[in-house]
Protein backbone atom coordinates (compact mmCIF):
# COMPACT_ATOMS: atom_id res chain seq x y z
CA UNK A 1 0.00 0.00 0.00
CA UNK A 2 1.58 3.28 -1.11
CA UNK A 3 0.95 5.84 1.64
CA UNK A 4 3.13 8.79 0.62
CA UNK A 5 1.22 11.88 -0.52
CA UNK A 6 -2.16 10.16 -0.08
CA UNK A 7 -3.59 12.22 2.79
CA UNK A 8 -3.39 15.77 4.07
CA UNK A 9 -3.88 17.68 7.29
CA UNK A 10 -6.81 20.00 6.56
CA UNK A 11 -7.48 21.60 9.92
CA UNK A 12 -5.70 22.37 13.17
CA UNK A 13 -6.84 23.75 16.50
CA UNK A 14 -5.56 24.49 20.00
CA UNK A 15 -6.89 25.75 23.29
CA UNK A 16 -5.12 28.51 25.16
CA UNK A 17 -2.16 26.96 26.94
CA UNK A 18 -2.05 27.79 30.65
CA UNK A 19 -0.14 26.69 33.72
CA UNK A 20 -3.50 25.79 35.21
CA UNK A 21 -6.85 25.88 33.51
CA UNK A 22 -10.21 26.19 35.21
CA UNK A 23 -11.55 23.50 32.86
CA UNK A 24 -11.13 19.75 32.86
CA UNK A 25 -9.39 17.62 30.25
CA UNK A 26 -12.63 16.62 28.48
CA UNK A 27 -13.58 20.26 27.96
CA UNK A 28 -10.07 21.13 26.73
CA UNK A 29 -10.07 18.26 24.23
CA UNK A 30 -13.50 19.21 22.93
CA UNK A 31 -12.50 22.84 22.43
CA UNK A 32 -9.35 21.89 20.48
CA UNK A 33 -11.28 19.39 18.36
CA UNK A 34 -14.01 21.93 17.55
CA UNK A 35 -11.35 24.49 16.60
CA UNK A 36 -9.66 21.99 14.26
CA UNK A 37 -12.98 21.09 12.62
CA UNK A 38 -13.88 24.76 12.19
CA UNK A 39 -10.46 25.41 10.67
CA UNK A 40 -11.12 22.57 8.21
CA UNK A 41 -14.63 23.86 7.46
CA UNK A 42 -16.08 20.51 8.50
CA UNK A 43 -18.98 19.45 10.71
CA UNK A 44 -18.41 16.82 13.38
CA UNK A 45 -20.76 14.60 11.39
CA UNK A 46 -18.02 14.30 8.75
CA UNK A 47 -15.63 12.62 11.21
CA UNK A 48 -15.53 8.85 10.91
CA UNK A 49 -12.12 8.21 12.44
CA UNK A 50 -10.83 9.15 15.90
CA UNK A 51 -7.36 8.98 17.44
CA UNK A 52 -7.35 10.23 21.03
CA UNK A 53 -4.07 9.02 22.56
CA UNK A 54 -4.24 8.34 26.25
CA UNK A 55 -8.01 8.42 26.37
CA UNK A 56 -9.64 5.39 27.92
CA UNK A 57 -12.78 3.77 26.61
CA UNK A 58 -15.07 6.12 28.51
CA UNK A 59 -13.19 9.28 27.56
CA UNK A 60 -13.14 8.35 23.87
CA UNK A 61 -16.89 7.96 23.65
CA UNK A 62 -17.53 11.01 25.82
CA UNK A 63 -15.51 13.12 23.39
CA UNK A 64 -17.32 11.63 20.38
CA UNK A 65 -20.67 12.30 22.00
CA UNK A 66 -19.70 15.83 23.08
CA UNK A 67 -18.56 16.64 19.55
CA UNK A 68 -21.79 15.31 18.05
CA UNK A 69 -20.33 12.42 16.09
CA UNK A 70 -23.45 10.31 15.53
CA UNK A 71 -22.28 7.89 12.87
CA UNK A 72 -19.98 4.92 12.91
CA UNK A 73 -16.31 5.70 13.43
CA UNK A 74 -13.00 3.87 13.31
CA UNK A 75 -10.76 4.30 16.37
CA UNK A 76 -7.01 3.71 16.25
CA UNK A 77 -4.06 4.23 18.52
CA UNK A 78 -1.59 1.58 19.45
CA UNK A 79 1.29 3.90 20.31
CA UNK A 80 1.44 6.03 23.43
CA UNK A 81 1.39 9.78 24.18
CA UNK A 82 3.82 11.76 21.97
CA UNK A 83 4.49 8.91 19.61
CA UNK A 84 0.76 8.33 19.15
CA UNK A 85 0.15 11.94 18.10
CA UNK A 86 2.93 12.02 15.53
CA UNK A 87 2.14 8.51 14.24
CA UNK A 88 -1.54 9.46 13.87
CA UNK A 89 -1.13 10.46 10.19
CA UNK A 90 0.40 7.05 9.52
CA UNK A 91 -2.59 5.31 11.10
CA UNK A 92 -4.99 7.72 9.39
CA UNK A 93 -3.40 7.03 6.01
CA UNK A 94 -3.76 3.28 6.58
CA UNK A 95 -7.41 3.64 7.59
CA UNK A 96 -8.26 6.02 4.74
CA UNK A 97 -6.51 3.95 2.09
CA UNK A 98 -8.18 0.81 3.40
CA UNK A 99 -11.59 2.47 3.23
CA UNK A 100 -12.19 2.23 6.98
CA UNK A 101 -12.52 5.99 7.36
CA UNK A 102 -12.60 9.15 5.26
CA UNK A 103 -11.95 11.91 7.79
CA UNK A 104 -9.82 11.24 10.87
CA UNK A 105 -9.56 13.55 13.88
CA UNK A 106 -6.58 13.31 16.25
CA UNK A 107 -6.92 15.08 19.57
CA UNK A 108 -4.53 15.15 22.50
CA UNK A 109 -4.63 17.12 25.69
CA UNK A 110 -3.12 17.30 29.12
CA UNK A 111 -4.24 18.70 32.45
CA UNK A 112 -1.14 17.91 34.47
CA UNK A 113 -0.86 21.52 35.55
CA UNK A 114 -4.05 21.31 37.57
CA UNK A 115 -4.51 17.57 38.10
CA UNK A 116 -1.14 16.10 38.88
CA UNK A 117 0.43 18.96 40.80
CA UNK A 118 3.71 18.28 39.11
CA UNK A 119 3.98 14.58 39.98
CA UNK A 120 4.42 13.54 36.37
CA UNK A 121 6.58 10.57 37.29
CA UNK A 122 3.69 8.46 38.56
CA UNK A 123 3.45 6.17 35.47
CA UNK A 124 7.14 5.32 36.00
CA UNK A 125 6.66 4.69 39.70
CA UNK A 126 4.03 2.10 38.78
CA UNK A 127 6.48 0.06 36.68
CA UNK A 128 7.60 -2.72 38.99
CA UNK A 129 11.28 -2.97 37.99
CA UNK A 130 11.65 0.79 38.37
CA UNK A 131 9.91 0.61 41.73
CA UNK A 132 12.28 -2.16 42.86
CA UNK A 133 15.63 -1.26 41.34
CA UNK A 134 15.63 2.42 40.29
CA UNK A 135 13.46 4.64 42.48
CA UNK A 136 15.00 3.40 45.78
CA UNK A 137 18.32 4.73 44.48
CA UNK A 138 16.97 8.12 43.44
CA UNK A 139 17.01 7.20 39.73
CA UNK A 140 13.68 8.97 39.24
CA UNK A 141 11.74 10.81 37.84
CA UNK A 142 12.10 11.57 34.10
CA UNK A 143 14.39 14.55 34.63
CA UNK A 144 16.94 12.21 36.21
CA UNK A 145 16.64 9.63 33.40
CA UNK A 146 17.29 12.26 30.73
CA UNK A 147 19.96 14.11 32.70
CA UNK A 148 21.78 10.77 32.85
CA UNK A 149 21.70 10.58 29.06
CA UNK A 150 22.91 14.17 28.75
CA UNK A 151 25.79 13.43 31.13
CA UNK A 152 26.79 10.36 29.12
CA UNK A 153 26.67 12.45 25.93
CA UNK A 154 28.91 15.05 27.57
CA UNK A 155 31.37 12.35 28.70
CA UNK A 156 31.57 10.63 25.32
CA UNK A 157 31.49 13.61 22.98
CA UNK A 158 32.44 16.69 24.98
CA UNK A 159 28.99 18.21 24.74
CA UNK A 160 28.74 21.26 27.01
CA UNK A 161 26.13 22.79 29.27
CA UNK A 162 26.17 25.87 27.02
CA UNK A 163 25.14 23.62 24.12
CA UNK A 164 22.19 22.28 26.12
CA UNK A 165 21.46 25.92 26.91
CA UNK A 166 21.44 26.83 23.22
CA UNK A 167 18.39 24.58 22.78
CA UNK A 168 16.60 26.19 25.73
CA UNK A 169 17.42 29.70 24.52
CA UNK A 170 16.25 28.99 20.95
CA UNK A 171 12.90 27.68 22.19
CA UNK A 172 12.43 30.65 24.51
CA UNK A 173 13.19 33.13 21.73
CA UNK A 174 10.65 31.42 19.48
CA UNK A 175 8.02 31.43 22.22
CA UNK A 176 8.42 35.19 22.55
CA UNK A 177 6.98 35.45 19.02
CA UNK A 178 3.90 33.32 19.80
CA UNK A 179 0.84 34.77 21.51
CA UNK A 180 -0.19 31.31 22.77
CA UNK A 181 3.09 30.38 24.46
CA UNK A 182 3.23 30.08 28.23
CA UNK A 183 6.76 31.53 28.53
CA UNK A 184 6.32 34.26 25.88
CA UNK A 185 7.06 36.99 28.40
CA UNK A 186 9.92 35.25 30.19
CA UNK A 187 13.02 35.86 28.05
CA UNK A 188 16.13 33.77 28.46
CA UNK A 189 19.66 34.22 27.15
CA UNK A 190 22.65 31.94 27.57
CA UNK A 191 24.00 33.93 30.51
CA UNK A 192 20.69 33.66 32.31
CA UNK A 193 20.52 29.96 31.51
CA UNK A 194 23.96 29.27 32.98
CA UNK A 195 23.12 31.33 36.07
CA UNK A 196 20.00 29.34 36.89
CA UNK A 197 20.38 26.64 39.56
CA UNK A 198 20.64 22.94 38.81
CA UNK A 199 17.64 20.67 39.38
CA UNK A 200 19.22 17.39 38.31
CA UNK A 201 22.73 18.29 37.19
CA UNK A 202 23.48 18.87 34.34
CA UNK A 203 19.83 19.97 33.90
CA UNK A 204 18.38 23.25 35.11
CA UNK A 205 14.74 24.35 34.99
CA UNK A 206 15.06 25.73 31.41
CA UNK A 207 16.18 22.27 30.23
CA UNK A 208 12.81 20.83 31.25
CA UNK A 209 9.45 20.98 29.49
CA UNK A 210 6.49 22.79 30.95
CA UNK A 211 3.85 21.18 33.13
CA UNK A 212 0.58 22.75 32.02
CA UNK A 213 -3.01 22.39 30.81
CA UNK A 214 -4.23 22.51 27.23
CA UNK A 215 -5.11 20.51 24.15
CA UNK A 216 -4.55 20.44 20.42
CA UNK A 217 -6.17 18.65 17.51
CA UNK A 218 -5.85 18.12 13.77
CA UNK A 219 -8.05 16.71 11.01
CA UNK A 220 -6.84 14.47 8.20
CA UNK A 221 -8.51 13.31 5.00
CA UNK A 222 -7.58 12.04 1.55
CA UNK A 223 -5.75 14.40 -0.77
CA UNK A 224 -8.71 14.41 -3.17
CA UNK A 225 -11.15 15.47 -0.46
CA UNK A 226 -8.60 17.89 0.99
CA UNK A 227 -8.60 19.97 -2.18
CA UNK A 228 -12.27 20.84 -1.59
CA UNK A 229 -11.60 22.04 1.96
CA UNK A 230 -11.53 25.49 3.48
CA UNK A 231 -7.82 25.59 4.36
CA UNK A 232 -4.77 24.95 2.23
CA UNK A 233 -4.00 21.24 2.65
CA UNK A 234 -0.67 20.25 4.16
CA UNK A 235 0.41 16.98 2.61
CA UNK A 236 1.67 13.97 4.58
CA UNK A 237 4.80 13.23 2.56
CA UNK A 238 6.03 10.46 4.80
CA UNK A 239 5.59 8.98 8.27
CA UNK A 240 7.37 6.31 10.22
CA UNK A 241 7.44 4.71 13.63
CA UNK A 242 10.25 3.00 15.48
CA UNK A 243 10.78 1.12 18.72
CA UNK A 244 13.79 0.44 20.90
CA UNK A 245 14.04 -3.30 21.49
CA UNK A 246 15.25 -2.89 25.07
CA UNK A 247 11.90 -1.35 25.91
CA UNK A 248 10.97 1.16 28.54
CA UNK A 249 13.96 0.72 30.86
CA UNK A 250 16.31 3.37 29.49
CA UNK A 251 18.90 2.39 32.10
CA UNK A 252 19.39 -0.94 30.32
CA UNK A 253 19.40 0.10 26.66
CA UNK A 254 22.25 -1.48 24.75
CA UNK A 255 22.72 1.78 22.83
CA UNK A 256 21.93 4.04 25.74
CA UNK A 257 21.69 7.28 23.75
CA UNK A 258 19.72 6.08 20.71
CA UNK A 259 16.03 6.97 20.45
CA UNK A 260 13.56 5.13 18.22
CA UNK A 261 14.27 7.91 15.70
CA UNK A 262 17.09 5.75 14.35
CA UNK A 263 14.27 3.62 12.88
CA UNK A 264 11.37 6.07 12.43
CA UNK A 265 13.32 8.78 10.58
CA UNK A 266 14.72 6.56 7.78
CA UNK A 267 11.25 5.08 7.31
CA UNK A 268 9.60 8.50 7.11
CA UNK A 269 12.26 10.01 4.86
CA UNK A 270 12.23 6.87 2.71
CA UNK A 271 8.47 7.07 2.24
CA UNK A 272 8.77 10.76 1.34
CA UNK A 273 11.71 10.21 -0.99
CA UNK A 274 13.53 13.01 0.84
CA UNK A 275 16.58 13.39 3.08
CA UNK A 276 17.40 15.68 6.01
CA UNK A 277 19.04 18.09 3.56
CA UNK A 278 15.59 18.78 2.05
CA UNK A 279 14.05 19.92 5.35
CA UNK A 280 13.29 23.59 6.05
CA UNK A 281 12.51 23.23 9.76
CA UNK A 282 11.96 20.59 12.45
CA UNK A 283 9.68 20.39 15.48
CA UNK A 284 11.26 17.77 17.73
CA UNK A 285 9.78 16.23 20.85
CA UNK A 286 11.41 18.27 23.57
CA UNK A 287 10.72 16.92 27.02
CA UNK A 288 14.31 17.93 27.84
CA UNK A 289 16.97 19.83 25.89
CA UNK A 290 19.24 16.81 25.63
CA UNK A 291 16.67 14.76 23.73
CA UNK A 292 16.62 17.41 20.98
CA UNK A 293 20.36 16.90 20.46
CA UNK A 294 19.97 13.10 20.53
CA UNK A 295 17.23 13.20 17.88
CA UNK A 296 19.15 15.55 15.57
CA UNK A 297 21.87 12.91 15.55
CA UNK A 298 19.57 9.89 15.30
CA UNK A 299 17.67 11.41 12.37
CA UNK A 300 20.80 12.20 10.37
CA UNK A 301 20.86 16.00 10.61
CA UNK A 302 24.37 15.51 11.98
CA UNK A 303 26.48 12.55 13.05
CA UNK A 304 26.47 10.93 16.49
CA UNK A 305 28.36 13.18 18.86
CA UNK A 306 28.07 16.30 16.69
CA UNK A 307 24.71 17.45 18.05
CA UNK A 308 26.30 19.83 20.56
CA UNK A 309 28.19 21.97 18.02
CA UNK A 310 25.18 21.65 15.66
CA UNK A 311 22.86 23.60 17.97
CA UNK A 312 25.33 26.41 18.77
CA UNK A 313 25.57 29.94 17.44
CA UNK A 314 21.91 30.43 16.58
CA UNK A 315 21.91 27.70 13.93
CA UNK A 316 18.66 26.23 15.28
CA UNK A 317 16.96 29.59 15.82
CA UNK A 318 14.54 31.21 13.37
CA UNK A 319 16.75 32.63 10.63
CA UNK A 320 19.38 29.96 11.26
CA UNK A 321 20.40 27.02 9.08
CA UNK A 322 17.77 24.66 10.56
CA UNK A 323 15.12 26.28 12.76
CA UNK A 324 14.15 23.87 15.56
CA UNK A 325 10.81 24.06 17.39
CA UNK A 326 9.61 27.37 15.93
CA UNK A 327 6.55 27.58 18.22
CA UNK A 328 8.77 27.53 21.30
CA UNK A 329 8.01 23.83 21.64
CA UNK A 330 7.31 22.00 24.83
CA UNK A 331 10.16 23.76 26.60
CA UNK A 332 8.61 27.21 26.18
CA UNK A 333 5.19 27.11 24.48
CA UNK A 334 3.36 24.19 26.11
CA UNK A 335 3.70 20.45 26.72
CA UNK A 336 1.00 18.64 24.74
CA UNK A 337 2.80 15.48 23.61
CA UNK A 338 3.97 17.13 20.35
CA UNK A 339 0.45 18.13 19.28
CA UNK A 340 1.58 21.76 19.29
CA UNK A 341 4.48 20.73 17.05
CA UNK A 342 2.05 19.31 14.46
CA UNK A 343 -0.10 22.44 14.63
CA UNK A 344 2.94 24.70 14.24
CA UNK A 345 4.29 22.70 11.29
CA UNK A 346 0.93 23.03 9.53
CA UNK A 347 0.84 26.79 10.19
CA UNK A 348 4.39 27.19 8.89
CA UNK A 349 3.65 25.19 5.72
CA UNK A 350 0.48 27.20 5.07
CA UNK A 351 2.47 30.42 5.47
CA UNK A 352 0.32 31.47 8.44
CA UNK A 353 2.94 31.58 11.22
CA UNK A 354 3.04 35.38 11.48
CA UNK A 355 6.19 36.72 13.12
CA UNK A 356 7.61 33.20 13.27
CA UNK A 357 7.12 32.46 9.58
CA UNK A 358 10.05 30.68 7.97
CA UNK A 359 10.50 32.08 4.47
CA UNK A 360 9.33 29.72 1.71
CA UNK A 361 8.98 26.75 4.07
CA UNK A 362 8.08 23.70 1.98
CA UNK A 363 9.10 20.70 4.07
CA UNK A 364 8.79 20.36 7.84
CA UNK A 365 9.50 17.40 10.10
CA UNK A 366 7.76 16.62 13.41
CA UNK A 367 8.70 13.98 15.96
CA UNK A 368 7.02 12.30 18.90
CA UNK A 369 8.72 10.25 21.59
CA UNK A 370 7.63 7.91 24.34
CA UNK A 371 10.51 6.07 25.96
CA UNK A 372 10.81 2.99 23.76
CA UNK A 373 8.70 4.48 20.95
CA UNK A 374 9.29 7.20 18.37
CA UNK A 375 7.51 8.63 15.36
CA UNK A 376 8.71 10.88 12.55
CA UNK A 377 6.34 12.82 10.31
CA UNK A 378 7.37 14.62 7.11
CA UNK A 379 4.88 17.30 6.05
CA UNK A 380 4.90 19.34 2.86
CA UNK A 381 3.21 22.50 1.60
CA UNK A 382 1.76 20.45 -1.27
Amino acid at each position, binding site marked *: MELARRIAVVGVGETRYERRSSRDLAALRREAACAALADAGLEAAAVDGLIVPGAGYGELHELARDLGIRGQFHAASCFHSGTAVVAAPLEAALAIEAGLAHTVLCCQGVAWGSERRGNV*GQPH*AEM*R*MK*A*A*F*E*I*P*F*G*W*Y*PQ*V*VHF*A*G*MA*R*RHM*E*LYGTTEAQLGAVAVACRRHAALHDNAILREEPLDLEGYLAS*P*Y*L*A*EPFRAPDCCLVNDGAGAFVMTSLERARDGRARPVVVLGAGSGVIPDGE*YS*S*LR*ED*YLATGAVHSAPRAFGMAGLSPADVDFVALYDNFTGLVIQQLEDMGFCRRGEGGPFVEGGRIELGGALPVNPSGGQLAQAFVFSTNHVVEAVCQLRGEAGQRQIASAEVGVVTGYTGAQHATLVLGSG
Partner: protein
Amino acid sequence: MTRVPELAERHLPDPGWPVAKPFWDGCRAGELRIPRCERCARWVWYPAPACPGCGGERHAWTATSGRARLFTWVTVHRAFLPGYRVPYVTALVELVEDPRVRLATYLRDVPASGLRAGMSVEVVFESVTEHLTLPAFRCVR
Protein backbone atom coordinates in the same frame (compact mmCIF):
# COMPACT_ATOMS: atom_id res chain seq x y z
CA MET B 1 28.24 -2.57 56.53
CA THR B 2 27.17 1.03 57.10
CA ARG B 3 23.82 2.10 58.40
CA VAL B 4 22.19 5.06 56.66
CA PRO B 5 19.13 6.01 58.67
CA GLU B 6 17.95 8.81 56.35
CA LEU B 7 17.21 6.25 53.66
CA ALA B 8 14.38 4.84 55.71
CA GLU B 9 11.97 7.63 54.87
CA ARG B 10 12.48 7.23 51.14
CA HIS B 11 10.57 5.06 48.71
CA LEU B 12 11.86 1.60 49.56
CA PRO B 13 11.48 -1.65 47.66
CA ASP B 14 9.50 -4.55 49.04
CA PRO B 15 12.20 -7.10 49.94
CA GLY B 16 9.56 -9.83 50.01
CA TRP B 17 8.46 -9.44 46.35
CA PRO B 18 9.24 -12.93 45.02
CA VAL B 19 10.76 -11.73 41.74
CA ALA B 20 13.41 -9.69 43.55
CA LYS B 21 13.65 -11.39 46.94
CA PRO B 22 16.93 -13.23 46.17
CA PHE B 23 18.53 -9.89 45.27
CA TRP B 24 17.64 -8.34 48.62
CA ASP B 25 18.53 -11.55 50.48
CA GLY B 26 21.96 -11.35 48.81
CA CYS B 27 22.45 -7.74 49.86
CA ARG B 28 21.66 -8.64 53.48
CA ALA B 29 24.25 -11.43 53.23
CA GLY B 30 26.83 -9.02 51.80
CA GLU B 31 26.69 -10.37 48.24
CA LEU B 32 25.58 -8.69 45.04
CA ARG B 33 23.63 -11.50 43.35
CA ILE B 34 22.33 -11.33 39.78
CA PRO B 35 20.31 -14.00 37.96
CA ARG B 36 22.33 -16.02 35.48
CA CYS B 37 20.99 -18.27 32.74
CA GLU B 38 21.68 -21.93 33.53
CA ARG B 39 21.76 -22.77 29.81
CA CYS B 40 24.02 -20.09 28.26
CA ALA B 41 25.49 -18.41 31.37
CA ARG B 42 24.31 -14.95 30.33
CA TRP B 43 23.45 -12.56 33.14
CA VAL B 44 19.72 -11.75 33.02
CA TRP B 45 19.00 -8.20 34.15
CA TYR B 46 16.43 -7.04 35.10
CA PRO B 47 15.05 -10.37 36.32
CA ALA B 48 12.93 -11.76 33.47
CA PRO B 49 11.04 -14.96 32.72
CA ALA B 50 13.33 -15.76 29.78
CA CYS B 51 17.02 -15.20 29.04
CA PRO B 52 17.38 -12.43 26.42
CA GLY B 53 20.21 -14.42 24.85
CA CYS B 54 18.88 -17.97 24.48
CA GLY B 55 15.36 -17.91 25.87
CA GLY B 56 16.33 -20.23 28.72
CA GLU B 57 13.85 -20.13 31.58
CA ARG B 58 16.03 -21.45 34.41
CA HIS B 59 18.14 -18.77 36.08
CA ALA B 60 20.32 -19.08 39.17
CA TRP B 61 20.97 -16.08 41.41
CA THR B 62 24.78 -15.87 41.32
CA ALA B 63 27.22 -13.80 43.36
CA THR B 64 29.21 -11.18 41.43
CA SER B 65 32.48 -9.49 42.39
CA GLY B 66 30.65 -6.27 43.24
CA ARG B 67 33.10 -4.37 41.08
CA ALA B 68 31.78 -2.07 38.36
CA ARG B 69 32.51 0.95 36.20
CA LEU B 70 30.73 4.26 36.31
CA PHE B 71 28.48 4.58 33.25
CA THR B 72 26.68 7.87 33.92
CA TRP B 73 25.50 9.88 36.89
CA VAL B 74 23.22 12.73 37.96
CA THR B 75 23.66 15.03 40.93
CA VAL B 76 20.15 15.68 42.19
CA HIS B 77 19.70 19.09 43.80
CA ARG B 78 15.94 19.09 44.25
CA ALA B 79 14.00 16.39 46.08
CA PHE B 80 11.41 15.03 43.68
CA LEU B 81 9.89 12.73 46.27
CA PRO B 82 9.44 13.11 50.01
CA GLY B 83 12.35 11.90 52.07
CA TYR B 84 15.15 12.23 49.55
CA ARG B 85 17.88 14.31 51.19
CA VAL B 86 19.56 16.48 48.55
CA PRO B 87 22.02 16.84 47.06
CA TYR B 88 22.73 13.19 46.26
CA VAL B 89 24.52 11.47 43.41
CA THR B 90 22.57 8.73 41.64
CA ALA B 91 24.32 6.72 38.97
CA LEU B 92 24.24 3.84 36.54
CA VAL B 93 27.18 1.44 36.90
CA GLU B 94 28.11 -1.50 34.66
CA LEU B 95 29.27 -4.70 36.34
CA VAL B 96 32.74 -5.89 35.35
CA GLU B 97 31.26 -9.38 34.76
CA ASP B 98 29.08 -8.01 31.93
CA PRO B 99 28.63 -4.34 31.04
CA ARG B 100 25.08 -5.11 29.90
CA VAL B 101 24.19 -5.42 33.57
CA ARG B 102 23.68 -1.81 34.59
CA LEU B 103 22.53 -1.02 38.10
CA ALA B 104 20.99 2.20 39.31
CA THR B 105 22.68 3.06 42.58
CA TYR B 106 23.83 5.76 44.96
CA LEU B 107 27.41 6.88 44.51
CA ARG B 108 29.50 7.31 47.67
CA ASP B 109 32.99 8.70 48.32
CA VAL B 110 32.86 10.97 45.29
CA PRO B 111 36.40 12.35 44.84
CA ALA B 112 36.91 16.09 45.03
CA SER B 113 38.53 15.92 41.61
CA GLY B 114 35.17 14.91 40.15
CA LEU B 115 33.70 11.95 38.31
CA ARG B 116 34.50 10.46 34.92
CA ALA B 117 32.67 7.76 32.98
CA GLY B 118 34.64 4.52 33.23
CA MET B 119 35.89 5.11 36.78
CA SER B 120 36.17 2.01 38.96
CA VAL B 121 33.55 1.62 41.67
CA GLU B 122 32.75 -1.15 44.14
CA VAL B 123 29.67 -2.17 46.02
CA VAL B 124 29.09 -1.08 49.60
CA PHE B 125 26.09 -2.44 51.45
CA GLU B 126 23.96 -0.03 53.45
CA SER B 127 21.52 -1.40 55.99
CA VAL B 128 18.26 0.52 55.96
CA THR B 129 15.98 -1.63 58.10
CA GLU B 130 16.20 -5.03 59.69
CA HIS B 131 14.80 -6.51 56.48
CA LEU B 132 16.37 -4.31 53.82
CA THR B 133 19.93 -3.55 52.75
CA LEU B 134 20.61 -1.41 49.67
CA PRO B 135 23.72 -1.74 47.49
CA ALA B 136 25.45 1.60 46.96
CA PHE B 137 28.77 1.96 45.13
CA ARG B 138 31.86 3.88 46.19
CA CYS B 139 34.59 5.29 44.02
CA VAL B 140 37.83 3.29 44.22
CA ARG B 141 41.01 5.32 44.37
